[in-house]
């Protein structure tokens, strides 16, 4: 297809519920409750009641099996026209980015005119499952044809089989938690405690300032009595952060990762409305920015060849090359703060001549990122990180930052479990 037949995918706006620390304000809310509420807020804000959209896509990382059709069930609970198709997407912490990026592509190709992308996650209502042994026995009993066979199967149940199994954030192939993986990468890149604490502090200060100046007024709708991300500590100081003990990489000579420079477990949902230019105009909707491009990346982390959360470093290089851009061309950088060290390791990698030559195959390093352009309204360390909701939070935030700056570019990087990640470019209008 010739390039001139691809039309713009416009980011019209976003809505999310405030993110809340796990096992707190949203402890009684399910994924479906939260994403439905976020969708309802978006629908109300842009007057989408009764409208049939091209598609609604999103997902959750921690999902109950009963939520196999999470997004479709959620759409049916909103005032959208029930003829609006919806489907679930899952790419760990990059779920929201993948949902939004692929919807933007469908709009660009003319397959659909409008879409909502996003994601949701709750740690407070995580799916608890039974052990593999108990499941095996129950399935065997289910297959039994006679009562005798059924009882024989059930008689195999032992007390040890009954322990509930909570989902972990450990990587299945290494058994290491994401924090432990990150601690190894941070150590390899020589990232200091001071730099990490400074980044965490900046995240809190920036998010608090953005709330105070009303930046989130048209991006966030209160939920269950919460009107601001309740992980936010606007009054934190570098001294307070410096007092915390390390929680990851404790066996290292110089452990640097604390509860403050690592994201807290949080619950929340975020959504983004996308459309073609014509559709936005026909419905008299704002056009904040264009979704230009996105790139997925993956690295071989299993035996430590590359750090678990370093895939965006590779995706960025390919994406910039394809678009003939360099970091100097960007006005804002949104690098998801899974951990402060995740952001710092990516930045150091892009600055490293050796990394860019050996790993990215570039003649010169990608260069530095101006810190005054980085996560200017806070990021996950302050807001929290309900895994699949983070992409929607970032896209809506960055689109708003770029609105009224036609042609100015924003860069997004989101790392994900399984050694994956996504980077994206959006352009103000």
């Amino acid at each position, binding site marked *: 297809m010739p390039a001139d037949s691809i039309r713009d995918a416009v980011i019209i706006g976003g809505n999310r519920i405030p993110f809340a620390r796990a096992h707190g304000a949203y402890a009684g809310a399910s994924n479906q409750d939260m994403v439905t509420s976020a969708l309802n807020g978006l629908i109300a804000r842009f007057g989408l009641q009764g409208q049939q959209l091209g598609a609604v896509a999103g997902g959750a990382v921690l999902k109950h099996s009963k939520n196999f059709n999470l997004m479709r069930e959620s759409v049916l609970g909103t005032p959208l026209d029930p003829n609006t198709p919806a489907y679930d997407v899952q790419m760990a912490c990059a779920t929201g980015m993948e949902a939004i990026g692929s919807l933007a592509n469908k709009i660009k190709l003319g397959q659909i005119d409008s879409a909502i992308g996003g994601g949701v996650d709750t740690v407070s209502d995580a799916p608890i499952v039974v052990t593999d042994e108990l499941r095996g026995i129950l399935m065997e009993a289910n297959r039994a044809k006679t009562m005798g066979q059924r009882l024989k199967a059930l008689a195999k149940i032992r007390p*040890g089989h009954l322990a509930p199994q909570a989902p972990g954030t450990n990587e299945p192939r290494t058994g290491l938690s994401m924090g432990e993986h990150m601690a190894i990468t941070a150590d390899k890149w020589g990232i200091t405690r001071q730099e990490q604490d400074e980044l965490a502090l900046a995240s809190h200060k920036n998010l608090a300032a953005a709330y105070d100046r009303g930046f989130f007024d048209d991006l966030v709708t209160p939920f269950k009595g919460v009107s601001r991300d309740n992980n936010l500590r606007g009054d934190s100081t570098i001294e307070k952060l410096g007092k915390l003990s390390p929680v990851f990489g404790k066996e290292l000579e110089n452990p640097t990762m604390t509860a403050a420079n690592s994201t807290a477990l949080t619950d929340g949902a975020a959504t983004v409305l996308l459309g073609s230019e014509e559709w936005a105009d026909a419905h008299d909707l704002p056009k904040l920015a264009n979704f230009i491009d996105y790139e997925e990346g993956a690295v071989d982390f299993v035996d430590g060849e590359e750090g678990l959360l370093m895939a965006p470093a590779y995706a960025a290089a390919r994406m910039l090359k394809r678009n003939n851009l360099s970091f100097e061309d960007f006005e804002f950088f949104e690098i998801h703060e899974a951990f402060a060290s995740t952001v710092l390791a990516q930045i150091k990698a892009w600055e490293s001549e050796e990394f860019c030559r050996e790993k990215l195959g570039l003649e010169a390093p990608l260069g530095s990122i101006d810190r005054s352009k980085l996560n200017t309204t806070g990021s996950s360390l302050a807001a929290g990180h309900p895994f699949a909701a983070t992409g929607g939070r970032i896209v809506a935030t960055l689109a708003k930052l770029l609105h009224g700056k036609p042609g100015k570019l924003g860069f997004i990087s989101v790392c994900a479990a399984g050694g994956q990640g996504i980077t994206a470019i959006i352009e103000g209008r």
Partner: protein
Amino acid sequence: MAQKIELPTLGSVYRQAAADAVKSKLSSNGSLKALPKEAVVTEHPGISAEQVEQYRELFGGEAFDGVHRQSLPSVLVHIAAFPVQMALMSRKDFPLPLLGMVHLTNSVEHHKPVYAEQPLEILARAENLRPHRKGTQADIIVEISAEGQLLWSSVSTYLGRGAYMFSRSEHEEVASGSREFSAPSKTALWTLGADTGRKYAAVSGDYNPIHVSGLSAKLLGQPRAIVHGMYSAARMLEGREPESAGHSWSISFEAPVALPGRVAFAAEEKDERTLAFTGWHPKKQRRHFTGELKLPQS
């Protein structure tokens, strides 16, 4: 020279060992100072598809779908041969006491693939009785073949702890195994539940009491149950052995892994064909094992 035997069951071997322990095989006259010259050999009907699936349930890994993966893991082949090793070591003319025997090292040449349900001939013989600082050690050689072709061979070195069969100076001259250890950067963390020994026992048939529970381990003088050494070998190799075989690997055991417990693990590429492995206690900086896998030249 080889004595043909029926495929033994490990239960009968352990019962014999317990009986021998009561009789104290190491008689004071020291009449047994040599390894049996005779090998034992047995026909194995083949590793059952059911056992292959049990092994996979324990260690994870990709499905044995009969197309993309059918070559059996080296440690499962070792499991098939283990009763034959034990039959040899429980013979009346084997000089080291079976109970309390410590597995020191294991090295395997996996020449050709071994498949499920493939009838095998398994031969075991003992070699190289020699002093160790803490007793006497011997090598058990295992050769597994099918239709006259050698598929798999191994050398397992065992220590008869406390069995001092050589002169005092000969035992003392053997260098101690303790070396300085600085932990590499870990690439994985194994979390082993209290039932890990029982689970491996259920797959391997090796219900050695030192592995199955804290209580039974205490009877043998271990404060807690310890994991089978070959469990660690299996995890170390999972997903890394080539389907067409032709590889070799080894493992040297150091401090035992107490259950429940965690093992920090590192896989490091030494060169294009060689991976080095280390397992250690994540807090105490005590090494549990070192290992190596050498892939065939492609």
